[in-house]
C-alpha cells in the first residue's frame, strides 16, 4: 500500500517535472531570440515531373537549374538572410506529370517538410493546379514554365503568384511580326502554312497565331493539326509542301518538333521562313541537325551576347554536365535569383515579407534586369533563330539584344 502511494507520488512528481520542463522549453521557443537558434538551414522544396510526359522538358529546363542555383548559393556560404548566410537544403519530389500528385507534393512540402520556400512546378496546367495551395499556405509561387494569356487574372486571384515567361498571344503575335519583317525585307511572300499539335498550348497558340497572321495580311494556305505524340508527320509536311507556302509555322511539342524538321529535310521542303515550336531552343536540336539548323526559327530565344549569359551557360555546363536551353533555362535560373534577392532585401525568411519584396520590384539576373509589374514580367523573349550554332532571340516584348532574322537557305 505504501509502496503504491510512493509510486503514485513518484509518478506524479515525474509528470510534474516533465510538464515543467515542457513549459520551460515552450517558453524558450517563444522567446524572441529563439528563431535565430532554430534555423541552421533553409529548406527549399521542389516538386516537378521526373517521370511521365513532361519529364523530357523538366530534365532540360527545370531540374538542372534548381541544382545549379543550390550549388551556386551554397558555394557562397548559403542564402543571405540579414547579416548571415544560411546553407540551402533541397527537397525534391516527382509529380509524375500528374496534377493530383503535384498537389499532394506541395501540401507535403508545406505541412510535413515545412519548407521555407517552394519552387513553382513545371508546366502550365500543374502550376494552375497547385496555385490554390501555394496561396493557402502563403508561399510565393514564381511560375516560369507556365505560358498563359490569363497571367493578370491569375495574379489577381492568387496575389502570391508571379508569372515570368510570357503569354501565348505575345508568342503567336511575335511569329507574325517576324514573318512581316521578313516580308518587308523582300525575303518571303504572304503565303503561310500553319500546323499545330492538338493539345492545350498548341491549340491556344494556333488560334492566336491565326488571328495575328490575318491581321498582318498573311494568307494561310494550309492549316491543320495532328494528335499529341504523333511522330509520323510525312502527310503533314507533304500537305504543307503541296500548298507551296512562303513560310511554315508549326506550334509543336518536343518530339514532333524534331519529327517535323527531319521530315521537311527529307521531303526537301524548304521555305525561307521555317518555324517550329517548343524544343527548337533545346541543345538536342542543334545536336541532331547540326549545320542544317541554320536559319530555323522557334519559340524562345535569349540575348546570347551578354557576359552574364555566357558565364551562366558555362557554369550550367560545368555544374550539371549539360547545356542550358536557349529559352526557359535562364529564366528558370533567374526566377531563383529573384527569390534569393527578395530574401536578401527582406532580411528575413518570413514569407509574407519576402513576397512584399517581390511585388513590383526589379532584379538583376542572368536575363538582365527583370521587373514584376503587377506580379507579371512584361518583357520576355518570344521568337529565336539558329544562327551559326547559337539560338539568338530575334523578337521579344521589349528586351535589348534582338538580332535581325535571316532567311533560311535550303537544307545543308
Amino acid at each position, binding site marked *: 500500500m505504501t509502496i503504491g502511494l510512493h509510486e503514485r507520488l513518484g509518478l506524479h512528481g515525474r509528470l510534474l517535472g516533465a510538464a515543467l520542463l515542457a513549459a520551460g522549453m515552450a517558453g524558450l521557443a517563444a522567446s524572441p531570440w529563439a528563431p535565430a537558434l532554430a534555423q541552421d538551414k533553409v529548406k527549399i522544396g521542389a516538386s516537378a*515531373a*521526373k*517521370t*511521365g*510526359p513532361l*519529364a*523530357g522538358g*523538366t*530534365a*532540360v529546363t527545370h531540374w538542372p537549374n534548381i541544382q545549379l542555383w543550390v550549388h551556386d548559393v551554397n558555394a557562397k556560404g548559403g542564402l543571405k538572410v540579414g547579416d548571415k548566410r544560411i546553407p540551402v537544403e533541397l527537397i525534391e519530389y516527382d509529380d509524375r506529370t500528374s496534377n493530383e500528385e503535384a498537389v499532394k507534393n506541395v501540401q507535403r512540402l508545406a505541412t510535413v517538410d515545412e519548407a521555407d520556400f517552394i519552387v513553382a512546378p513545371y508546366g502550365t496546367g500543374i502550376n494552375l493546379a497547385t496555385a490554390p495551395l501555394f496561396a493557402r499556405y502563403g508561399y510565393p509561387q514564381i511560375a516560369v514554365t507556365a505560358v498563359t494569356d490569363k497571367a493578370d487574372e491569375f495574379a489577381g486571384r492568387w496575389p502570391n503568384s508571379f508569372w515570368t515567361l510570357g503569354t501565348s498571344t505575345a508568342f503567336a503575335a511575335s511569329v507574325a511580326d517576324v514573318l512581316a519583317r521578313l516580308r518587308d525585307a523582300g525575303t518571303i511572300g504572304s503565303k503561310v502554312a500553319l*500546323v499545330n499539335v*492538338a493539345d492545350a498550348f498548341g491549340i491556344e497558340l494556333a488560334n492566336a497565331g491565326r488571328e495575328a497572321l490575318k491581321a498582318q495580311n498573311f494568307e494561310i494556305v494550309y492549316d*491543320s*493539326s*495532328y*494528335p499529341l*505524340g*504523333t*511522330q*509520323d*508527320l*510525312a*502527310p*503533314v509536311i*507533304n*500537305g504543307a509542301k503541296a500548298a507551296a507556302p512562303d513560310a511554315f509555322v508549326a506550334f509543336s511539342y*518536343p*518530339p514532333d518538333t*524534331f*519529327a517535323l524538321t*527531319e*521530315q521537311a*529535310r*527529307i*521531303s*526537301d521542303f524548304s521555305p525561307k521562313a521555317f518555324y517550329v515550336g517548343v*524544343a527548337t531552343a*533545346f541543345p*538536342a536540336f542543334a*545536336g*541532331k*541537325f*547540326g549545320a542544317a539548323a541554320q536559319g530555323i526559327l522557334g519559340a524562345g530565344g535569349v540575348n546570347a551576347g551578354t557576359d552574364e549569359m555566357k558565364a551562366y551557360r558555362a557554369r550550367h555546363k560545368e555544374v550539371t554536365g549539360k547545356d542550358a536551353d536557349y529559352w526557359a533555362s535562364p529564366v528558370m535560373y533567374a526566377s531563383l535569383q529573384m527569390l534569393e534577392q527578395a530574401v536578401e532585401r527582406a532580411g528575413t525568411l518570413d514569407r509574407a515579407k519576402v513576397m512584399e519584396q517581390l511585388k513590383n520590384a526589379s532584379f538583376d539576373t542572368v536575363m538582365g534586369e527583370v521587373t514584376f509589374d503587377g506580379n507579371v514580367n512584361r518583357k520576355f523573349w518570344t521568337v529565336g533563330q539558329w544562327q551559326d550554332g547559337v539560338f539568338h532571340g530575334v523578337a521579344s516584348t521589349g528586351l535589348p539584344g534582338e538580332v535581325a532574322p535571316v532567311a533560311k537557305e535550303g537544307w545543308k
Partner: protein
Amino acid sequence: MDIVVTGILLSGTYALIAIGLTLQYGVARIMNLANGETLVAACFAAFWLFVTFQVSPLVGLLVIAPAAFALNWAIYRVLLAPLVARAKSRGALEVDAILATFGLLFLLQGLMLLGFGGEYFTYSFLAEPFRILGNPYGLNRVVAFAAAVVIAGLLFLFLNRTRGGTALRAVAVAPEAALLVAIDVPRFAAFAFALGGAVTAAGGTLLSTFYTFNASMGVVFTMKALIIVVMGGVGDIRGAVLAALILGLAETAVASLVDPGLTLAATYGLFILTLLFRPQGLFGRPAS
C-alpha cells in the same frame, strides 16, 4: 501513290512494334506490359552505341537483339516461370502476368531514368531522302520497313516450315495437348518470350533512327502494339502484319485526305469495328 507508299512505310514501323508482343502474348501467354520499355531500352542502347562508339544501328542490331533475347529469357525464367507453374488456368496466368509485367515496366523505366535521365533523345542516321517513284522518303524509314519485312518473313517461315516453329504453334494453340506429344512446353514458352523480346528490341533499334524518345515513352508503344495484336488476332504473325498495314494506310490516308487531327480517331474506329465484327481478330481463332 504518295499516300500508299507513306502508309506502307508507316505500317512497317507498326509491324516492328507489334510482332514481338504477338509472340510473347500468343505463344508464351504473357501479356507483357513492359514490352514498350523493352523497345525504348533498345532505342537507348542504339543511341548509346551510335553516339559513343559510332556504331551504326544496323550493326548495333547484331548486339542488341541477342542481348535482348538473353535478358528476356532470364526474365521469363526468374520472374514469369513461377507464375506459369502455379497458375491454375489461363485466365489466372494472364492476370498474374499483367501484374508482374506492370511492375517490370516501372523497374525498367526507373533504370532508364537513372541511367539516362528524363530528357528527349534523338540522333540522325540515314535521315536522307530515298526516292521511290520520284517522291522522297526517309531512308531510315525505308530501311526499317525492309527490316520489318525480313523479320516478319523469317518468323513466318520459321513458324510454318520448321519443326521448332511447329512446336511453338502447338504450344500457342493447346499447351496441354502439346505436352502429350512430347513438346517441352516450358522451354518453348521461354523461347517464344525471349524471341518476342529480341524482335521488339530489333524494332526499337530501328525506330530510334527516326523517332525522338525518352525514358517515359514505353507505354505509348505498348498501347499501339496492343491495338495491332488484338486487331490481328493474338499470336498470329500474319494478323499483326496485316493489322499494321491496315492501320498505316488508314492513318496516312486520313491524314492526307481528311485531316491529320483525325488519325487517332481512324485508328480507334478501326479497332472498334474489328472488335464488333471479328472479336477474335483478323486471323484469330474463335475462343473455345
